[in-house]
């Protein structure tokens, strides 16, 4: 099946972005409206395609559109082609739907910013790139979107780049992403060298013929790419700093969509990972490590956005873990991705709303008792909170519990380890999210006189409310009759029949709920009972200090990569100047030296020159004499 409308999904926001960038200040008055309209237009096209897709039979649902031949050299043939299947449509709707809501939210949130038009241009650019990422029909097309969202993320993190730390955060995000991109490009190269193609369909077709080694290499490289983009261990360090961007950006890019691209990539490449168990195991391990890593960092953060960012990292860890569990987990990974898209975006918007009312204060120790002043924000945030900690019947309960369950059922030591990690993560999640809610909305007022907490305007709370609806209902909708799992079945391989379940689903749910309640209780005991100090206490255990320093991720990167890089750079600078250019200059010196030595023969007296001529003539005659001998 082909469709002629796919390109407009991308073209609309791209056009909006280009127009807003090129029009400059002239578009300041209507720029935000155009941006929102373009995003909304894309959403409508997405809905139209979705309705068309629903009307077709299961194996007819995927549609493609070939635009033109993009790169064609020898056997390396890449078309500028788009493909919309059951997996992509989930993303398209999430991106354009949540994206449009966040556009609307931003109209109000950014209304005081002089550069609001530029902000919308970047947002539109992001939407276009993200859509290209999920719509591309080959790894190379995906790569374009992949780096495109990286660029948009860079631009948006550094939106207020007049602050040097924000600019540094943007650069850090881009560089970390580039490390991941390196993995993606290597994966593409290996894929072309072994399979002779880079399109999804081609790779899927030939993957069975390739050696496991090659597929494992591709898989590992794809995982590297995913860790970069999705802030997974060990390339996770950029996400916390990325909160420098305006809050809607954090909601859209660094919670709902872009950071989940890694999960999309792994799910999309299921045919590779399923044939390369080692790579798949690596994926699961990385996911498990990150979900704990992020959760631990989340417990120590006082900055509301950074706490949410750590939570995002942790939740994506769940998704990656799910995707790493193979056919059993893909659908749940995607489900968690979608539900997370709703509740985390909602919570970020809530955080933005709080900041909006609190004069851009982000330190939760300066909040407290805000539920009275911001009831709607509190309500939407609270719904998101219930969803993320996995209280039934909210969305998170369905998706997260399923992943834990699948993890336990992966079998053997692997299953128990991963499952326990996921369970522990759930408990910690409950703890730190409760902490966030208590510090922000409960307890006594701790803000200073300047702040005048107030509810946000309708343009801001309506998107929040809609997302809250999603946080409540999406989980039930997706699991009702295994709707999402069946929907995705043609893309990701069907899970094989459960063989000897380790734990029954009910047991997992109960276990998880108990642990969640434990976490919540601990947080309540710790933060409700006593007064929260305005400045974080310093006499804390080494564990807390390490957690506050993001588990030393930056220290490690600085010591190992930055310092080494700087040393190499300065060493090479010296090498270049003294050795390589030194050799060149040495030759020059040699020539000059021999020149000045010979210069002494130049006395300036004509007669001495004449003598040299005479001596030269003797040499000539002597040569003749010898030759004719």
């Amino acid at each position, binding site marked *: 099946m082909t469709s002629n409308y796919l390109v407009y999904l991308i073209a609309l926001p791209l056009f909006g972005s280009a127009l807003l960038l090129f029009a400059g200040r002239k578009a300041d008055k209507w720029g935000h409206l155009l941006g929102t309209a373009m995003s909304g237009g894309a959403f409508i096209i997405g809905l139209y395609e979705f309705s068309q897709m629903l009307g077709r039979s299961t194996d007819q649902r995927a549609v493609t559109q070939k635009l033109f031949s993009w790169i064609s050299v020898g056997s390396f043939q890449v078309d500028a082609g788009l493909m919309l299947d059951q997996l992509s449509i989930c993303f398209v709707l999430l991106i354009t739907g949540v994206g449009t809501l966040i556009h609307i939210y931003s109209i109000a949130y950014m209304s005081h910013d002089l550069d609001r038009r530029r902000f919308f241009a970047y947002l539109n650019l992001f939407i276009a790139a993200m859509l290209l990422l999920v719509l591309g029909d080959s790894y190379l097309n995906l790569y374009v979107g992949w780096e495109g969202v990286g660029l948009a993320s860079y631009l948006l993190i550094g939106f207020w780049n007049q602050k040097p730390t924000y600019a540094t955060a943007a650069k850090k995000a881009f560089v970390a992403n580039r490390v991941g991109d390196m993995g993606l490009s290597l994966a593409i190269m290996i894929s072309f060298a072994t399979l002779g193609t880079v399109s999804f369909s081609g790779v899927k077709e030939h993957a069975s013929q390739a050696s496991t080694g090659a597929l494992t290499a591709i898989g590992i490289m794809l995982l590297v790419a995913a860790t970069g983009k999705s802030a997974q261990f060990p390339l996770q360090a950029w996400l916390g700093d990325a909160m420098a961007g305006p809050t809607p950006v954090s909601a859209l890019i660094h919670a709902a969509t872009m950071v989940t691209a890694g999960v999309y990539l792994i799910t999309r490449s299921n045919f590779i990972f399923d044939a390369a168990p080692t790579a798949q195991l690596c994926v699961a391990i990385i996911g498990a490590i990150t979900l704990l890593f992020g959760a631990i960092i989340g417990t120590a953060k006082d900055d509301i956005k950074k706490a949410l960012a750590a939570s995002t990292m942790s939740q994506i860890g769940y998704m990656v873990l799910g995707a790493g569990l193979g056919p059993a987990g893909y659908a749940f990974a995607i489900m968690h991705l979608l539900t997370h898209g709703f509740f985390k975006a909602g919570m970020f918007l809530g955080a933005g709303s709080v900041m909006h009312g609190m004069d851009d204060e982000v330190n939760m120790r300066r909040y407290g008792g805000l539920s009275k002043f911001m009831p709607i924000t509190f309500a939407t945030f609270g719904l998101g909170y219930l969803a993320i900690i996995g209280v039934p019947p909210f969305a998170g309960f369905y998706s997260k519990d399923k992943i834990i369950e699948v993890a336990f059922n992966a079998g053997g030591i692997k299953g128990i380890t991963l499952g326990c990690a996921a369970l522990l993560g759930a408990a910690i999640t409950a703890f730190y999210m409760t902490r966030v809610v208590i510090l922000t909305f409960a307890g006594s007022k701790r803000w200073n006189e300047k702040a005048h907490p107030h509810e946000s305007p309708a343009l801001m709370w309506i998107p929040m409310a809609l997302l809250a609806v999603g946080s409540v209902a999406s989980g039930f909708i997706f699991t009702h009759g295994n709707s999402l799992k069946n929907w995705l079945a043609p893309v990701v391989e069907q899970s094989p029949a459960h063989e000897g379940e380790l734990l029954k689903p009910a047991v997992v749910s109960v276990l998880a709920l108990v642990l969640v309640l434990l976490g919540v209780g601990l947080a309540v005991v710790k933060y409700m009972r006593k007064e929260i100090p305005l400045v974080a206490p310093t006499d804390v255990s080494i564990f807390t200090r390490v957690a506050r320093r993001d588990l030393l991720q930056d220290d490690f990167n600085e010591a190992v990569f930055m310092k080494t890089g700087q040393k190499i750079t300065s060493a090479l600078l010296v090498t270049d100047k003294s050795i390589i250019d030194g050799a060149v200059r040495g030759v020059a010196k040699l020539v000059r030296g021999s020149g000045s030595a010979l210069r002494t023969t130049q*006395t*300036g*007296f*004509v*007669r001495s020159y*004449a003598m040299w001529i005479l001596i030269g003539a003797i040499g000539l005659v002597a040569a003749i004499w010898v030759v004719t001998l």
Partner: protein
Amino acid sequence: MNAANYLYVSALLFTIGAIGVVVRRNAIVVFMCVELMLNAANLAFVTFARINGNLDGQVMAFFTMVVAACEVVVGLAIIVTIYRSRRSASVDDASLLKR
């Protein structure tokens, strides 16, 4: 007598001229020595013409004479110019090339 004797004379005269060019300091005498060398060469040309039985050597000698004349004219003009500004015809005084 062998016609090659003329060549020996030519070689001797050439050598004497060469020594003169190097040793003498008066620019005019240096020039005379150059003329002597040219003449020595001419003698060789003429002798070779005779030995080989064709006139090309003589033509060459003729050209040499013309070139020598040109050289003398220009050279002496230069000497006059130098003398006018430096009051000396010594070649050692004109050693500005060094600087």
